Structure formats: C-alpha cells, structure tokens
C-alpha cells in the first residue's frame, strides 16, 4: 500500500538523518548538520504523507492503534525538533540525541500490527482525535525536555569535573539546554492538561463517567503531577539546571510506563495498546 511505502521511506530517511547527526557530532562540520536536517525534513514530509493518506482511508486521524500513535508521536517529536530549530536557543547537537528516540518510536510502530481495523462504535467520536493528538504532542515536548535534560546532566558533569574535552566542546552552553527544558515544559504541560481534560469529557460521552481509574488514567495523572511540580518549582522557587533536568528525566521514565507498559501489558479502557 502506498501509505506503507511512505512510512518505510520516512523511516529510512530518519535513519540516514541520524547517521548525519552523528557525523556532525563527530566532525562538527556545518555541512553535515545541514545535510542531516535536510534529510530529516524529507523524512518528515514523507511521514506527513503517510499520516494524511491513512487519515483518508480511515476517515479519521490515525491515532487509534499502538502502531498509529507511536508513529504519530515520532512525527510530532520531529515536528518539535524543527520548532526548536526555528524558535529555541541554538543547540546544534540536539538532533544527535533526539533522533535515536525517534528511530525507537518508529521501530516500535513498525513491529506492531498496522492493519487498518474499523473502530469499535464507542471510540467513533470527534473526541478521540482531539484527545489523542493533544496528548501525543504533549509527550513530544516532554521527550524533548528529557533529552535536553540528559544533555544538561552530561554537560554539567564535564564542567563540574573539569573534563573539558570533546564532549564539552560539542555540547551547547548549559543555559541553552535549560532553556529547551523550560520551553518544552511550558508548551507540554498545558497540552497534557488539555489532553487529560478532553479525555475525561470523551469518557463521559462514551461510558457515562469522567474518570474510571484505569491504569492509563492513573499513570497519566502521575505524569501530570510530576510536570505540575516541576513547573511550580520552576516558577515559584526558581528551580533550574540540574534539578529541572533530573525531573524531566523522571518524567520520561514515568512516561515509558504510561505509554509502553500500560498500553501493552495492562488491561484497561485504552485498548489501543492491544497487539491484536
């Protein structure tokens, strides 16, 4: 099918782009970075086509199955990357750290069943795409925050221990990484909040109850509390740097549970995680 072809093409282009980002990290040649970004843009374009084509077949945004949502999330992360290239501080090596994550998401999507199955009637609602797309975009920001946090901790280690070698020179100033962390949080948190609210509204429509404590909902709430705490501390106490980076990483691990473990292994209302 043509939409599958574009998925594969996007995957291959992402792979080439990742290699390009690694070459840039090693050589620091601006041409490598430019090339990697260009290929990434090409991959992003193919990926967009894949999503649009799937949308035409489904007559709904493709965010229902695990295959679709992890593919969509990978697409959103690439989108967030370009958003930061355009708007954020200059972090030339961000792609080197972010792209492997995109690849993992693409692999996760590729190995899960991709047939287009009609949705059960209970899920056929406009709320589904709204709830899912908003949530997935918030994840994309949090993943970027976690990657920036990882880079921050790595760079801080170099500074504190006075290891001013290759890694130190390749990573950006601490301030820039902290700024990515902050911006991601500022965009991601409202989206997550909105995602949870729209989810609750939809649940009320579908099942007559706003909240039913299924594992996905519980873990999403934990996730929300982590980022709420981080945002609060950032704004009120002035947390930044090391602690903010560590919180972003903590959020990442909780997210892994909420996205992979809960979806794939725990039974619940969020059936999109089921393999069959």
């Amino acid at each position: 099918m043509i939409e599958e072809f574009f998925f594969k093409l996007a995957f291959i282009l992402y792979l080439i782009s990742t290699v390009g980002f690694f070459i840039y990290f090693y050589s620091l040649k601006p041409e490598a970075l430019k090339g990697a970004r260009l290929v990434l843009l090409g991959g992003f374009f193919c990926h967009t086509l894949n999503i649009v084509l799937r949308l035409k077949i489904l007559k709904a945004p493709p965010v229902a199955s695990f295959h679709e949502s992890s593919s969509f999330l990978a697409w959103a992360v690439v989108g967030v990357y370009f958003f930061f290239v355009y708007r954020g501080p200059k972090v030339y090596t961000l792609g080197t750290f972010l792209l492997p994550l995109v690849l993992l998401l693409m692999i996760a999507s590729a190995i899960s069943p991709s047939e287009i199955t009609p949705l059960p009637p209970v899920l056929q609602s406009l709320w589904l795409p709204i709830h899912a797309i908003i949530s997935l975009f918030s994840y994309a920001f949090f993943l970027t925050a976690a990657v920036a946090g990882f880079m921050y901790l790595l760079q801080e280690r170099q500074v504190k221990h006075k290891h001013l070698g290759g890694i130190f020179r390749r990573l950006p100033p601490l301030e820039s990484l902290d700024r990515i962390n902050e911006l991601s949080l500022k965009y991601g948190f409202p989206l997550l909040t909105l995602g949870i609210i729209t989810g609750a509204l939809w649940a009320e429509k579908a099942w007559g109850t706003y909240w039913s404590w299924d594992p996905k909902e519980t873990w999403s709430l934990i996730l929300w509390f982590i980022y709420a705490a981080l945002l609060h501390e950032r704004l009120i106490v002035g947390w930044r740097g090391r602690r903010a980076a560590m919180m972003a990483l903590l959020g990442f691990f909780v997210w892994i549970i909420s996205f992979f473990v809960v979806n794939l292994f725990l039974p619940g209302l969020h059936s999109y995680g089921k393999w069959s």
Partner: protein
Amino acid sequence: MENGPKEKILILGLNHRTAPVEVRECFALKNVSEHPLAILKRELPEAEEVLFLSTCNRVEFILVSKTSDQTLKSLKEILVRTTGLEVARFEDHLYFYENRDAVRHLFRVASGLDSLVLGEPQILGQVKEAYREAVEYRTTGPILNRLLHKTFSVAKRVRTETGIGSHAVSVSYAAVELAKKIFGSLKGRTALLVGAGEMAELAAQHLISAGVSRMLVANRTLSRAIELAERFRGKAYGLEELPECLLETDIVITSTGAPGYVITRDMVKPLLRKRRLRPLFFIDIAVPRDVEPAVNELENIYVFDIDDLKQVVEENLGRRKQEALRAEKIVEEEVLKFERWLRELAVYPTIKALREKAEAIRRRELEKTLGRLDLSPEEKEAIETLTESLIQKLLHDPISYLKSGYHREGREAIVTVRRIFNLDQEEPGSSPTFEELSGAEEATEIPKKWH
C-alpha cells in the same frame, strides 16, 4: 632577452626568538626623526620595492632587489647609522630569507604561525598597517603588491580553514570562554571583581567586551575598590558586603592576597535559594585560593581555580599546535602557487603563454567551422592561413609592447598583459584587481578600509 639578473624577494629581520629586547627596540627605529621607509627609499636605491614591518616582537625588512648581496650590505650600513649599534651587536640576531623562503616566512608571520602566542590574530593587522604605510610612501611595486595581497588571503584562509585561532590560550580569555559555555550569551550579565590584580582586571575587560553589562568591585580597601569601579563604571563594595554582592552577580573573579578562603561554602549555601538557583561561576585566580573548593559541589555553582584554567590553556595550546600543522600545509601550497606566478612573470613565458592561448582558440574554432563545412583541401588550407595570419597580426602589438615595455616599465608591463589576456587562468575576484596591482596611486583604494 631579459638582460641582467632577476629581481629577488628578500627578507632581513629579527624576532622574539632570535634577538633580545634591547636589540629589537633599537630596530623598531622609533627614535629616528624620519619614517624608516623614507630613509630606505632615499638611501637604499638598490631595492626596487620596500616594506617595513615593526611590532614589539619583530622587525622585518621586506625588499625586492636584483642585487641581493649589495642590497644587504647597504641595508646593514643604514642600520648601523640609524640604530647606533655596531654590526657585531646585531648581526648574529638577524635572519635572512630569499625568494621562496622569504615568501613562506611572510605567509607564516601573517598567519600567526611565527608569533610568540601561536595563532594570535593581531599580527595580520600589523602587516596590513605596514603595507598601508609602504603604499603611502610609494615603496611598493608589482611584486610586493601581489605578494602582500596574497599574504592577506593566505592568512584569511588559514584562519577560516584551521582552528588555529579558535582556542583560548590565555588564562583570562579561557575564563571568558568557560563563562560562555555556562551562560550562553554574556549579554546583560553581572560580574563581580573581588580583589584586584592585573590578570583579574584583564579578565574583567574580556568579560565586558563579551557583553557583561554590570561590574561590581569588592575590595578590602574601599578606596581601591572605588578606583577600580570607576574604571569599569561599576559599583564599589567592601569585603564584608560580599554576600549581598553575590546575590546579584553571575560571574565572580577573585584575586585577593588573603591567606585563607574569602568565599566559603557556608557563605554561599544560604544564598542559593535567594538567588533562585541561578548559576554562579567563580573564576579564582588567586594563590592561595580565595574560594573554598567545596563551593563547586553546590547546585548550579561552578568553581574554576588557576590550575584548572591553566590546564585549559595547556590543552588549547596543544590543539593550536595540531591546527598549526594543517596551517603549514596551506602555507606551503600557497608558496608554490606564488612561486609559479613569479616564475611566469617574465617576458618569454608571457609571450609563449599568449601565443599558446591564441593558438588554442584558433584551433578550437577552426575545428568547429571545418567540421560543418564540406571544403576541398585547398580551401581548408586557405582558411588555415587566414586564421594564422589573423592571430599573428593581432598579437603583434601586445608582443612588441611586452618586449619594449619591459625595459621601460619593468614587470608592470608583464602584469598588465597577463591580466588583460587572463594568462594565469584565475577566477574573477580570487586575486587583486588590476587597479590594486598597478601601483601606488590606485592602491590607495584599499587602505581606506583599514582605517
């Protein structure tokens, strides 16, 4: 055809490695009432072109002359008169380069490869200034004009294609580079100077030029603090006000003569929350140290002492040395190119190149035309003869201009012809323009930019 010996490029000079400062300062010719170039122009007629480069680390006489031995002898005599030193006092400190070695030496000097601090950038500006003066005194000619423009482009190439200038090699500059790695931009940041000292002030100066907008000065004696604060347009404090100062600053440079720690962990720790955990960067260049090492363990606080900074400088010097190897290769490449240009800059190779170019064009066009036409051998023969006599008639005047012009105008004539017919196969813009090459009058265009 070319009678007499060829012009040679000569360099006579001394630098920080070959001569002690007593000799170098005499050679700077600062005490002479006239400009050195004026003296050389008058008293050294053997030299057709002269350039005089003088910095605190080196003095170089760059000459073009047909008689190298005679020129050197006269130059040394002039130097004895102007410096007041005997030949024996300075002779051993001098170095002398000729032609290819001279070109290489000048390229290396301008690229900072021969500098006391490897890769320092000021030297290029000093070479440009020396050239500007020579143009002003009209002591340059076609060879030095070309050589100097080539020198500038080589230096630029070295700077952009190698990292020779990109690693800080002074303690104060290394501190600024580190600060940038923590804060990103230093614009709008505040720095605090604790204690005074030459290196600390230098670092403060670097910070200000990197964008730091506010300077605070804290010192044991308040009067000294006020004096320093005035220089940096900042505020002065006594040492006992340090905690308040630390609340407001991002970067701290300490260099007091105090025997113990001036800034301790216990002093900084309570400030963290009040500072809203903003990063704080201590540059401790005092010995004994002013900042307790344990301060480095606090959150978002970074302490670098003098040894840390020296280590950074050491590593960067190593990197520059690596880059210098690549720079030497570029220089060698460009020396060869320049040598080729110099060799070609004679009457016969020019005539030959001119004829070859015309012949190549004739053949190419002839082939195109003859391929399309169906002609008898006689007709072909006639066209061959026609084209041959065309180019011969056309080239007659440039060639006779070359031959006669060489005696009147010297190499100027050759440069002109080579450029008009583009015999050096250069891309436009890659070399000095005709105006730049054709002498002092027109060359005044360029120096304007340097002011």
